[in-house]
């Protein structure tokens, strides 16, 4: 029965037929292949129970579903627009009507200021729709970019996302992939084989491990669909509904008392020994939920969403436990993207510094570390939100500047009492400054160590920087939380609460 035929029915039959049609549209077809859930079940799992409302449930393309479910639901009581690919219809391929349904939902979210969550499972552009499909994909991308300036966008990858379907997530803020099922690639293994001869599995060219560890295309890996959708909810819990909206403030929680008592002892005595920066964060931030983004990629820098006195904050920190906490091309891009994100959505940026420097050498220069490092400088310089920086231990050279230094616009920069801030490490500095003396010495290594120790105490200690006003104060580890929260309270006074 076509849509118009419904009008031939009497009122009661009409009512029953419409109800049935809506129900059919909602249920759609059974999940296909390895899929455990239908698009509708995924959406219901994501939003608060029973809150999903579909937009244009009766819309069709070529006599069947559009291939995409669009609507809104509540997440912790706040409206979120949801766009879920329906892999049961033409493998979720993006046709002209599909794309139009997506852009309508995007437009609603942008105009009214609601986050957008994309539940992706699509084979890419729908070939029979030809250039109309491509045109539609481009329109989706354009609204992805328009939405960047307005609302948070999160992509959850629950199936293959090929070609055009992979680019839309790349234009959103955070992408979560399900291990084993979620794939993102320009073309699948068959086309790769035909084009270049390369033999590669779907996991090799677009699996969650590749993208969350090496490429950085995706930002979180989830074990299953439930935890992927839960992660999307968790990201939203730290964010305002739109740019300029009230921050998602919760009840303040003290930091974990054990971690607080450990804080003065976390940093090892010897500057060359690594430690886990998470232990510093544990002793400073609220004990409640925290979310590390991109935990597997460029691990020498941490990017974390957390709270201080109930207020959501973004944390950037060197991680000495991974590659010594160095900055390199990938770490710079990771941190820059995060700082820029925090700035857009009103999150203050707290930076914890223990950085031996930018990793030098042919590999990094070849990767364009100068260009990538400059992105981090720019992100801090442009950050519109409060920037508070704590030098926990080492801060040398260009990396000192790049980690949210005062000169880049940090509102406050403090150093722990044992911090070392200098243009380069003591060993390198004395080698350069005392070249002739060292060349003439009987035991140059002993002399170098002696000079380095003096340099460390006389030049690198933070009091010089504090006396010059470059560091605002030298503080004890246990004073950190109080300094940060006092400053945040002042800096955010009068903004939306």
């Amino acid at each position, binding site marked *: 029965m076509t849509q118009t035929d419904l009008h031939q029915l009497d009122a009661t039959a009409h009512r029953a037929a419409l109800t049935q049609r809506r129900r059919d549209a909602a249920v759609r077809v059974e999940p296909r292949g390895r899929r455990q859930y239908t698009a509708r079940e995924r959406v219901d799992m994501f939003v608060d129970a029973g809150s999903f409302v579909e937009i244009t449930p009766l819309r069709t393309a070529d006599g069947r579903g559009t291939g995409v479910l669009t609507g809104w639901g509540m997440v912790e009581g706040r409206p979120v627009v949801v766009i879920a690919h329906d892999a049961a219809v033409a493998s979720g391929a993006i046709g002209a009507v599909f794309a139009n349904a997506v852009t309508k939902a995007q437009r609603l979210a942008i105009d009214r200021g609601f986050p957008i969550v994309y539940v992706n499972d699509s084979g890419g552009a729908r070939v029979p729709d030809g250039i109309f499909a491509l045109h539609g994909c481009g329109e989706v991308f354009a609204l992805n970019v328009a939405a960047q300036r307005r609302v948070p966008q999160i992509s959850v990858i629950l199936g293959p996302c090929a070609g055009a379907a992979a680019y839309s997530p790349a234009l959103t803020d955070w992408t979560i992939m399900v291990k084993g099922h979620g794939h993102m690639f320009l073309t699948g293994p068959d086309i790769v084989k035909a084009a270049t001869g390369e033999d590669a599995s779907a996991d090799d060219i677009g699996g969650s491990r590749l993208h969350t560890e090496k490429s950085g295309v995706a930002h979180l890996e989830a074990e299953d669909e439930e935890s992927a959708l839960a992660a999307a909810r968790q990201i939203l819990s730290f964010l305002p509904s739109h740019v300029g909206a009230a921050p998602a403030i919760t009840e303040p929680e003290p930091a974990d008392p054990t971690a607080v008592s450990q804080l003065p002892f976390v940093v090892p005595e010897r500057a060359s020994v*690594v430690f886990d920066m998470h232990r510093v964060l544990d002793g400073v931030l609220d004990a409640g939920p925290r979310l590390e983004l991109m935990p597997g990629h460029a691990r020498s820098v941490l990017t974390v969403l957390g709270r201080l006195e109930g207020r959501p904050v973004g944390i950037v920190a060197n991680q000495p436990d991974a590659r010594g906490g160095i900055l390199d091309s990938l770490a710079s891009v990771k941190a820059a993207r995060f700082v820029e994100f925090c700035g857009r959505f009103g999150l203050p940026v707290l930076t914890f510094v223990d950085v031996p420097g930018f990793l030098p050498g042919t590999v990094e220069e070849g990767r364009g570390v100068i260009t990538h490092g400059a992105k981090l400088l720019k992100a801090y310089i442009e950050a519109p939100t409060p920037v508070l920086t704590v030098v926990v231990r080492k801060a040398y050279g260009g990396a000192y500047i790049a980690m949210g230094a005062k000169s880049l616009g940090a509102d406050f920069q403090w150093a722990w009492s044992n911090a070392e801030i200098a243009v380069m490490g003591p060993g*390198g500095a004395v080698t350069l400054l005392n070249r002739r003396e060292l060349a003439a010495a009987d035991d140059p290594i002993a002399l170098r160590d002696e000079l380095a120790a003096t340099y460390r105490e006389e030049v690198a200690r933070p009091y010089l920087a504090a006396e010059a006003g470059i560091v605002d104060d030298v503080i004890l580890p246990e004073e950190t939380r109080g300094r940060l929260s006092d400053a945040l309270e002042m800096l955010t006074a009068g903004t939306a609460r």
Partner: protein
Amino acid sequence: MIEARADIVANVWKIVVREGDPVGAGDPVAVLETMKMEIPVIAPSGGYVSRILVNEGQIVQEGDVVAEIDAATIG
């Protein structure tokens, strides 16, 4: 066969295991020195060290295999 790899360009400062030694997941097999930092090379999972492929004082590149670990020989 599991490989413990260097994750950064560095000088091999100390090798802390011998071939045949048992190691647990997360145990260091060597310590690298780069940027004045001591950076451990970690066994990704437990087993017996079957081969050490580097010498102290040698330069390793990011991704180089430092030691091979045989997981099959553990219970």
